[in-house]
């Protein structure tokens, strides 16, 4: 699947979905810089339990919120040049599966971004640390 990058905005699409066997992602997110509000969403899947912290620059937006998170980051003009940090810690509490998934979604920029990170654990109760970093440019 094609990857939208900063140098080829012509190839951008509304949503880009990828399932990647990884627990971290880093993204240079291109802003329109026209005052469009940015929305950031974190979804914890597979019926697992997890908490999320979100920080914009040095300001904490959300601290250890359980379950799904949906935030209005602010107008893109106001956040350009800052970095959005997100840490999600998930525990496998489901006896039916060993899969853990976290989906990060950022909208309001030149193109919407969505990516699912996943990892299978060895045992019930294992903890997985997920992380996402967005350079807002």
């Amino acid at each position, binding site marked *: 699947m094609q990857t939208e990058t900063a140098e080829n905005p012509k190839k951008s699409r509304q949503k880009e979905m990828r399932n990647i066997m990884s627990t971290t992602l880093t993204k240079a997110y291109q802003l329109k810089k026209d005052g469009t509000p940015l929305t950031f969403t974190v979804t914890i899947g597979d*019926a697992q*339990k997890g908490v999320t912290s979100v920080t914009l620059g040095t300001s904490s937006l959300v601290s250890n919120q359980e379950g799904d998170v949906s935030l209005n980051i602010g107008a893109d003009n106001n956040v350009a040049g800052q970095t959005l940090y997100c840490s999600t810690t998930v525990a496998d509490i489901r006896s039916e599966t060993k899969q853990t998934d976290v989906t990060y979604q950022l909208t309001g920029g030149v193109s919407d971004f969505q990516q699912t990170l996943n990892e299978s654990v060895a045992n019930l109760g294992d903890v997985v640390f997920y992380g996402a970093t967005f350079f807002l440019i």
Partner: protein
Amino acid sequence: MTTFRKTIRLIVCFIFWGGLTRVCFAQQEATSLNMLLSPGAPGFVLLGVEPSSVERPGNVTDFGLNILNNTNGLSALPQNYAVEVAPYWLFGHPYLSYNDYSGDNGVISTVEQTFSISLATSSKFEGAVDTLSTGMGIGVRFSLLQGQIDVGFDNYKSKLDSVVNDLGGLNHKIDSVYRARSAADAMMSELSNARTTAANRNDSALVALIDAQRTARDGELRTEAENEIRSQNQSQIQQLKSLVTSIQLRRLGWKLDVAGGVVLDFPKQSFDNSSLTKEGGWITGGYELQNYSLLAVVRYLVDAKNSAQTNLDAGGRFIVPCSPNWTLSGEALYRSFTNQSNSSSWKFDVEIDYTLAKNSAVSFTFGRDSQGSQTGTLLSALNFIFGFGSQRP
């Protein structure tokens, strides 16, 4: 016997089993009803070797194995095996939140999450010359009603809250460590400055290169932070894991399962001689309370070889948890044939279930069988359940 007398006899059976288990109320503790012992796979039912005829709804793991030893003397090697797979849980579901799972999300979601396919085999000697033949049962099963999670059972909710609290502590630590490392990292600072310069010069190729390097370095910082947190918090992580594995999920309320399948026989164990010999479907439903459960089944089995053996079963089962590891249950099943010349019969049995360890359990069934030519004979079966892939709590 008239239908009324048959009904009265059935009610008396329930009362009898209820009285027999009265002792268990005095010393019972909450137990993991949802996870104690998956009943026999639908394939076993079709093959006619199921340890209990009234199956307990709703136990799902992504892959499970049943080993059934059904002999009079419990002296032979296991002869009957079944594997059961729940396809839904073999794949990831990124948008299935915990609230979606634990709440009432409709019949379709329930069916998806509980649907399982089983494959069972049973070997037996048949005919005057005692030829070994194998039957293979292919069954499916799913739930329409699963009941509601009992949040008070074994401190379920408070344990989950503790899990969330512990996750918060770990998340705070790793987030703080990572951001501190990132802020102090000289390489990240240089890359950021270089990117700004390259972007101002509209050097897209260099920008892309810097973005790739920054991505790689950020990943390294995340990994370093995780390694540090895991190293410094081993006991806390292990305690969290122990807490999670101690959580037992139980669903109470109305339960309704649907199951069915077919049987292929392989006379003299020859693949080329296989034939479809049985097919059937059944519904199991009931109500589960904290102290006991009452289930009923209606089952229709078609014998493709001998239509006179096509039968309709109806029965019930009463289940009582006696301790965290022990469960006692009793069932009665009435079998009638579509061909009136065949005599109807009763099956009674008592089952004792015991949780061996995480992900494994054993059941012992003893009673009076009513399967075909075995009507009235002793039913004695030892059944082992193992869950592979994912661990049962």
